[in-house]
């Protein structure tokens, strides 16, 4: 007993306790549902057996059916555009802003604070707002673009199949920008000023300091931000019902919205689960990237 106590106050027990508690909680609240979904994707599900585990086994038939849907490949393509477009945009703009606000000028931090507005706004509101802004005829984005002469004809952001996925992506970039910027800012602030000084004396210009000091030192932050960005983007749901509903003709439909449609519009829970299990592949990839990025990270 005493050994356990002392291990908890001074030894490995402390670490195990901290990790263990959290892991148990997570397994219960995220692990079990995950398994439930995976199991469900191999079963026949209807409203009557929704709450039990024992359901008729369906083999891979759900997968076969999902893949043979005519919109399947379109949705894969859209998901890729949405995910990579969003992460790319959020990360690049977020990093640029984070760097910009690391400069010393009056009110820098206050103004940076304003950027967090997008994080504060509930997804529902953001979706509705962007739905308005991106509207074709009465949308303010078109009015502005026309006003400054960038476009002549109305752009039907939400209804033009070649624009729709980008419209949602733009809204999502706006939404996630603050998240990226803030986390990258925290990471940047953690780099010791010494290193920049040394690099500057070594003759590094701004860009070189960025690429040889900032980027590698931020590796774990960047890994975290990108991996989480990917997962977050894959879970981004609110914008779709509010802006395009995946339309027109699935041209802006993505996996997570499709999964929802299966489950909650078509009430085919098994297919919904199937699509969400397929999304695991994306996340698997993200997780690997992240864990890889932590391999070479530098402890302060």
């Amino acid at each position: 007993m005493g050994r356990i106590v002392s291990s908890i106050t001074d030894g490995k027990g402390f670490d195990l306790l901290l990790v263990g508690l959290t892991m148990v909680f997570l397994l219960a609240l995220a692990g079990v549902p995950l398994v439930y979904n995976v199991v469900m994707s191999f079963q026949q599900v209807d409203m009557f057996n929704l709450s039990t585990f024992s359901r008729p086994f369906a083999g891979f038939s759900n997968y076969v059916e999902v893949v043979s849907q005519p919109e399947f490949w379109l949705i894969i393509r859209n998901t890729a555009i949405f995910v990579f477009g969003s992460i790319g945009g959020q990360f690049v703009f977020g990093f640029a802003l984070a760097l910009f606000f690391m400069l010393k000028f009056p009110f820098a931090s206050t103004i940076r604070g304003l950027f967090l507005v997008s994080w504060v706004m509930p997804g529902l509101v953001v979706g509705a707002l962007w739905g308005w802004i991106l509207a074709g005829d009465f949308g303010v984005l078109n009015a502005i673009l026309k006003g400054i002469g960038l476009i002549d004809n109305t752009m039907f952001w939400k209804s033009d199949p070649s624009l729709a996925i980008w419209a949602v992506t733009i809204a999502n970039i706006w939404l996630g920008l603050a998240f990226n910027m803030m986390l990258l800012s925290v990471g940047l602030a953690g780099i010791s000023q010494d290193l920049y000084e040394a690099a500057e004396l070594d003759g590094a210009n701004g860009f070189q300091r960025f690429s040889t000091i900032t980027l590698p030192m931020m590796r774990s932050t960047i890994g975290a931000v990108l991996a989480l960005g990917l997962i977050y983007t894959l879970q981004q749901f609110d914008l779709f019902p509010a802006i395009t509903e995946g339309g027109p003709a699935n041209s802006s439909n993505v996996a997570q919205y499709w999964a929802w449609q299966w489950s909650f519009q078509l009430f085919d829970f098994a297919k919904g689960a199937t699509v969400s299990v397929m999304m695991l592949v994306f996340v698997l990839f993200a997780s690997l990237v992240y864990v890889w990025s932590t391999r070479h990270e530098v402890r302060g």
Partner: protein
Amino acid sequence: MNRLPAPKLFLVLALGLAALYLFPLYWMYVTSLKGSSEIFANPPTFWPNDPDPSIYPETWARRTMATFLWNSLVIATGVTSLTVLLGTGCAYVLARYRSVWIDIGLFAILMLQVLPASVMITPLYVGFNQLGLLDYPRTAVILAAAGKAIPFYIVLVRATFMSVPRELEEAALVDGNSRWGAFFFIVLPLARNGILVLAILTFMQAFGEYIYSKSIITTQSLQPASVGLSGFLGPNSTDWNGIMAYAAIYVTPIVLVFVILQRRIVAGLTSGALK
């Protein structure tokens, strides 16, 4: 570095960027003040023809926003507390060591994030039902939402812990601290900025939590503001300026609080080793 050519110029640029970025927010306020058909006007009006601020008190009262916001606050506070409580220690341990087990742990935590809330809700609902948790719907929502928030929090706070020099913790141990003491009095204070930022981010996310609340909380007097808001978004009778007014009331206080807090957070952003 303190030899910038023109801080003023940066200030102007920063303000410009902020204005650009905040345009949707402006649009929310403006839309809330417009008449219901002016909203559809083509071309759109940048300032309402006939601003009507009475929409705010009206919406506040009609939508029983006080109750909704209170519930949001309760849920957000609960989620944030639980997340910080469970996530911080775990993140610290995952930052402290470097081994295959840590990699596996991180990997598992990320994988647990995979499913969107909209897909998770069915199994959670079923589970909570069996445990009888549906009778305490706000608690159930707090648990579910924390399960979603914790992995995020861990991964990000871990990055903060990485920047706390190991030697400081060692010094604390030699000074007579237990692992707990060193963790609480040395490591935590040094990582507090990251933790604070993430706690705030978690709070804000939880404040807008929608999917779980919607399904789990069936009693209107316990529902958070997001569910209250979704009540407007029907197919045929959409009161857009009301929605925007609601959203404005919903968002404004947090924005203000945040901008104020932000200054404090960044004011103390001085970590890193000292030789």
